[in-house]
């Protein structure tokens, strides 16, 4: 059997035999597990940066007319120093708004979902020695590095960091004189092109690996839902990111070499006019699939962890797969729902309403199936499971609040208000980030060979759950009151008179939420060195990665496993010595073919 291994894997085994220098092993490694760890450290760092930006921003929103605490340590491009303290400048506030969104989406959540976990899990869960293209994989990480450096640098150039919102709406983003931001905007756009390149290289790798490197017996419908979700996500990234790259490059040209793709001329009827709405169409053609890039892997992790934690097979495995596929497909035809009030032809709004509302159907299917997985289970409420359940609970709120925007007439009122801010955070934080925390607690033992502290993990979960809701639930109310997004000071508006106390509560909780992140960070780093040694399969899980040592050695398998069962076989009545059945063990036990019902 070992001789039948295909050739890319052979090299991995050979490499393992040679001692590697520090550089080759940790810095320029081609081992997917090391690259995943690199991505993890990178994205946790940017998660902290993004959180810091959010806390700064929240302080300004809660006390818009007061000087900034510790504002004196910031440079004069960010704050104005008056006699009674340092006040945040509106341009810095715009930079915070822009860069909080951009950093979180492009440098924290997306690479954490895909860069970390697609890298780590796809070969391990499919039974491959490594990725299809290990060197391309390394390149995919190292193209993210300049993106991060450029982003950080952009805060300190003249004019400050980009300030046209993470959606970069032209012409605000295309003309320096309109924002006062010059280099910052260009640096961020270049960073975006790097992110796109990294993402495309990664996607090529993940898709090829899933198509061609599955272990014998690992049929499409025996793949763990995590791999399914990451595979669909990679397809979305592959097809959506290049559109953003093309649009971003055009925007860079508008900024630098005098083209006018997105810049209309001032005078009416001028022949030179570019089209601001073209930017929005291109951006959201990318942007809506991006939303699913940010949630589908989280759905995969949740399905997996819920099954393990409930000691039950995933309820409706095939329905889950088809729901993933239909969400991805619909994701490409709904971009216009971000543009209902944009001046786009209202008749188009009708079509986009229908397609958008239909996304609620597969989302509902998934939610009910998760509940079905928990139903009559034997729930093991460890930290990872808590976060997975938290994901379902929070994602449900985020999904339901999305129905408001999909209904175009209601969207007239709530578009660009804090209602939207609440919605995206319930999906991105309550959804993606909860699932990511769950994934880290769950796979940490496999990645680093040690367990994370459960007590700290549970405290972290409850703090996060409570504070998260105190931060973001009231935003629905603030949005209903009509508070616009991205405003530096709301005190001048008569319809916003009653929201001061709410905003202050939100900010105080946000600081707590940020601080609770450090509890997690402490647990994370402490456990890397001091955590309890992890057994091979601490959770009693059935997928392939748990059949190898923690952490797996370079090359993962000395012998490629053979797969006999679906991915989530728990509490099978014929298996009596334990309540799980590994995908690669006991061919004598009959399990439902390809996860059918």
């Amino acid at each position, binding site marked *: 059997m070992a001789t039948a291994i295909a050739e890319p894997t052979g090299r991995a085994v050979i490499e393992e035999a040679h001692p590697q220098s520090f550089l080759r092993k940790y810095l320029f490694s081609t081992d997917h597990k090391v690259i995943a760890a690199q991505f993890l450290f990178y994205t946790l760092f940017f998660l902290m940066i993004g959180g810091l930006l959010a806390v700064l921003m929240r302080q300004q929103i809660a006390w818009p007319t007061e000087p900034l605490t510790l504002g004196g340590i910031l440079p004069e491009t960010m704050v104005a120093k008056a006699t009674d303290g340092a006040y945040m400048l*509106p*341009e810095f506030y*715009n930079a915070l*708004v822009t860069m909080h969104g951009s950093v979180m989406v492009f440098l924290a959540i997306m690479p954490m979902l895909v860069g970390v976990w697609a890298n780590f899990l796809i070969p391990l869960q499919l039974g491959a020695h490594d990725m299809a293209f290990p060197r391309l994989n390394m390149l995919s990480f190292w193209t993210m590095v300049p993106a991060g450096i450029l982003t950080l640098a952009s805060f300190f150039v003249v004019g400050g960091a980009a300030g046209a919102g993470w959606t970069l709406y032209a*012409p*605000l983003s295309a*003309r320096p004189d309109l924002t006062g931001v010059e280099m910052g905007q260009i640096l961020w756009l270049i960073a975006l092109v790097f992110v796109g390149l990294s993402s495309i290289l990664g996607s090529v790798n993940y898709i090829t690996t899933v198509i061609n490197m599955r272990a014998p017996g690992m049929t499409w419908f025996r793949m763990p839902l995590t791999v399914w979700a990451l595979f669909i996500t990679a397809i979305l990234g592959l097809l959506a990111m290049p559109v953003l790259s093309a649009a971003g490059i055009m925007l860079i040209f508008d900024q630098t070499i005098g083209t006018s793709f997105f810049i209309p001329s001032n005078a*009416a009827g001028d022949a030179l006019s570019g089209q*601001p709405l073209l930017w929005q169409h291109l951006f959201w053609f990318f942007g809506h699939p991006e939303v699913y890039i940010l949630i589908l892997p989280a759905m995969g992790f949740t399905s997996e962890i819920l099954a393990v934690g409930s*000691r039950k*097979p995933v*309820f*409706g495995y095939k*329905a889950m797969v088809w729901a993933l596929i239909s969400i991805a497909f619909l994701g490409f035809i709904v971009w216009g729902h971000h543009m209902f*009030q*944009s*001046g786009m032809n*209202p*008749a188009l709004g009708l079509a986009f309403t229908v397609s958008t*509302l*239909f996304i*609620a159907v597969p989302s*509902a299917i998934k939610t*009910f199936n998760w*509940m079905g997985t*928990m139903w*009559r*289970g*034997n729930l093991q409420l460890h930290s990872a499971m808590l976060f997975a*359940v938290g994901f*379902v609970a929070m994602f*449900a709120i985020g999904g339901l609040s999305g*129905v*408001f925007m*999909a*209904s*175009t*007439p*209601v969207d*007239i*009122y709530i*578009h*660009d208000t804090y209602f939207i801010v609440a919605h995206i955070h319930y999906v991105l934080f309550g959804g993606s980030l909860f699932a990511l925390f769950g994934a880290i607690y769950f796979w940490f033992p496999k990645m680093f060979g040690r367990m994370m502290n459960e007590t700290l993990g549970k405290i972290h979960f409850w703090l996060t759950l409570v504070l998260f809701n105190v931060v973001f639930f009231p935003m629905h*109310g603030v949005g209903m*009151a*009509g508070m*616009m997004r991205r*405003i530096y000071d*709301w005190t*001048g*508006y008569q*319809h916003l*008179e*009653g*929201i001061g106390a709410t905003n202050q509560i939100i900010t105080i909780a946000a600081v707590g939420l940020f601080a609770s992140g450090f509890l997690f960070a402490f647990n994370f780093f402490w456990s890397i060195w001091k955590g309890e040694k992890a057994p091979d399969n601490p959770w009693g899980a059935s997928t392939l990665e748990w059949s190898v040592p923690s952490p797996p050695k370079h090359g993962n398998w000395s012998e490629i496993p053979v797969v006999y069962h679906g991915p989530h076989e728990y*509490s099978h*009545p014929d298996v009596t010595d334990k309540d799980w059945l590994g995908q690669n063990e006991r061919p004598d036990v009959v399990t*439902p073919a390809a*996860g059918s*019902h």
Partner: protein
Amino acid sequence: MDWSLPPNFSTHGDVIDQLFWIILGLTGLAFVLVEGGIIWFLVRYRGTPSRRAHYTHGSNRLEVVWTVIPAVIIVVLGGYSAMVWDDIKNENKFPEDALEFTVIGKQFEWNVVYPGVDEVLGTSDDFEVRNQFHFPAGENVIVNLRSEDVIHSFFIPELRVKQDAVPGMDNIRIWFDSREPGQFEIACAELCGLGHYRMEASVTAHARADFDAWQASQVAENGGE
């Protein structure tokens, strides 16, 4: 704490608010079902070493049920939304007796071009006022939105109206009314630069006689050009 929609003054605002509360009711029900179910499962099926979980891979019948029920609700909701949307935004359905204004957004001002006493835009008695929008209450109003520099969004919360003004796109038209006199504000709802937060203009819905008087005073002030 003010967590509610601001008072509504406009006709189509009633339908928007009604839809909002309908959706809140529906999603609220789903919210209670899902969150209640999760909590119940957490308590009911909390793990014990003595019990084994029920072995099942799902139920096709249930899958169909929870696919069809949301789909039906969605279709109904979508159809109703589409009708309301069409009534509000379809230019062919705009009232013909409406008084037309032009509103020009620029960093960071709203400039309103008034049709003057002849109530027709583009004639010599038009006049322009910065950051003040006056119109007669109880009458239909059409605003031709323009922008000089970047994308702005024309937002009057109490009238449930919001529409982006896009540079290079002349005359994005919106229709609304205020059934009663009132004092509101135009806020900019789309990030438009460093003065975005201060791009506000006062909106006054007058009784017709008051509007005529205000207009007369403006014409007099501008020296009858």
